[in-house]
C-alpha cells in the first residue's frame, strides 16, 4: 500500500513520502496519513488592538485575542516574524491551548474578536477552523491576517466562519513573489476575489520595500486591479518597511515614497488608503464625501471616532466596514 500523500491546502501542494514534513513545517505524513503538528499548540498568544492587525474598518477601538503557531507557506526574505514563521513547531515554545480554551480566554479578556495572525494561519487551518466554529457560537468574531496563499476549496469552507480578512498583497509581479517569497502572485489574487465573493470583510496590506516593489507604475496597476475586481471601498494599508531577516541591506521606506504610493492609490480611485508603521495623517479615516476626519488614530489607538451607525456623523454618508 502506497504511503505517499499530497497536501491540498495551499498552492505548494507538497507531495510527502512517509515521515516527511511539508514545506510549511506544520504538517507531516505519518504512515500514509497527513497530520497537522500544530493543532492546539500556539507559540504566540496576545491581546492586541484590532488596529494592529491592521483592521481600520472593523470594530475600531476593540481588542482581538490573537494566536499563531509556528510555520509558514511562504519564505519571504523580509519576514518580520521569521523567528516563528520559519521555525519548526518543535523549535518554538508552545502553549497547550485547545480551541475551546481560546474562545474562553477571548471572553475572559473581553475581546470582541479572535485573530489568526503573526505567522500564516493557513498552516494551522484545522485549529483555526475548529476555533472559529466555537467562537461563532459565542458571538465572538473571527478575523485573520493572511498572505492569501491558500487553495480555493479550503478558503471557501473557512469563509463561512470568517468575518474579516486582512490579506498581504506583497507586490504585483510574479517575479517578486518568485524571487522574494518563493511563491506566486496568481493564487493570492484569486483568494482576494474569493473572499469578496464570500462576503468576508476585506482589507489589504502592502509592505512598501525600497527598490523591490516601490515602482509607481506597478503600484498603479495593482490599484487598478483592486478597483476593478474588489471595488473602491476595500481599505488598503501601505506599510513602512524596516530591515529584517534577510533584507537588512535595504533602508527603511522613506516617508515620501509612502505618501506618493498613497496618492497613486487615491488617484486610481481607491477611497480608503492608509499609511502604516509610521506616524502620519495617513493613519486616519476621512469621509470620502465631506472629507472630514472620521477616525483619528495615534498608532494602534483610536483617539476619536465620528462614525455613528456606520455613517459619517457630519454628512451621513455610509462608510463601508463592520462597525458593531
Amino acid at each position, binding site marked *: 500500500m502506497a504511503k505517499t*500523500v499530497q497536501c*491540498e*491546502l495551499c498552492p505548494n501542494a507538497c507531495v510527502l513520502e512517509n515521515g516527511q514534513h511539508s514545506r510549511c513545517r506544520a504538517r507531516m505524513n505519518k504512515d*500514509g*496519513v*497527513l497530520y497537522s503538528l500544530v493543532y*492546539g499548540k500556539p507559540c504566540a498568544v496576545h491581546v492586541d488592538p484590532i488596529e494592529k492587525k491592521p483592521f481600520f474598518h472593523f470594530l475600531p477601538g476593540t481588542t482581538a485575542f490573537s494566536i499563531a503557531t509556528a510555520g509558514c507557506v511562504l519564505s519571504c526574505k523580509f519576514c518580520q516574524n521569521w523567528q516563528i514563521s520559519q521555525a519548526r513547531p518543535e523549535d518554538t515554545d508552545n502553549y*497547550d491551548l485547545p480551541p475551546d480554551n481560546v474562545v474562553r480566554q477571548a471572553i475572559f479578556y473581553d475581546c470582541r474578536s479572535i485573530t489568526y495572525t503573526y505567522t500564516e494561519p493557513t498552516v494551522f487551518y484545522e485549529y483555526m477552523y475548529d476555533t472559529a466554529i466555537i467562537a461563532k457560537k459565542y458571538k465572538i468574531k473571527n478575523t485573520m491576517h493572511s498572505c492569501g496563499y491558500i487553495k480555493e476549496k*479550503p478558503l471557501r469552507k473557512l469563509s463561512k466562519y470568517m468575518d474579516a480578512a486582512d490579506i498581504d498583497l506583497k507586490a504585483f509581479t510574479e517575479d517578486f513573489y518568485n524571487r522574494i517569497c518563493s511563491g506566486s502572485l496568481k493564487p493570492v489574487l484569486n483568494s482576494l476575489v474569493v473572499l469578496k465573493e464570500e462576503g468576508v470583510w476585506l482589507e489589504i496590506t502592502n509592505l512598501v520595500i525600497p527598490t523591490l516593489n516601490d515602482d509607481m507604475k506597478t503600484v498603479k496597476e495593482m490599484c487598478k486591479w483592486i478597483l476593478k475586481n474588489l471595488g473602491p471601498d476595500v481599505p488598503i494599508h501601505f506599510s513602512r518597511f524596516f530591515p529584517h531577516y534577510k533584507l537588512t541591506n535595504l533602508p527603511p521606506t522613506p516617508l515620501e515614497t509612502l505618501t506618493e504610493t498613497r496618492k497613486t492609490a487615491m488617484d486610481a480611485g481607491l477611497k480608503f488608503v492608509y499609511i502604516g508603521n509610521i506616524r502620519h495623517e495617513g493613519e486616519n479615516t476621512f469621509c470620502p464625501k465631506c472629507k472630514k476626519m472620521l477616525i483619528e488614530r495615534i498608532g494602534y489607538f483610536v483617539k476619536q471616532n465620528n462614525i455613528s451607525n456606520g455613517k459619517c456623523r457630519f454628512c451621513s454618508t455610509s462608510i463601508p466596514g463592520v462597525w458593531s
Partner: protein
Amino acid sequence: MMTRREFFRFFIIGGILSLLGKKVNAGQKPKEAMFWRRID
C-alpha cells in the same frame, strides 16, 4: 510548630488530592489534516 504527625497527615492528604485532581494536558495529539489525498 508542626508536629511530625501533622506533617505526614498533610503529606498524605496532599498526595491523595493530587492523584484525584484533574490531570494537566501535556499536549495535543497531532490532528489529521482536512485537505489531503493519497497518491497511489
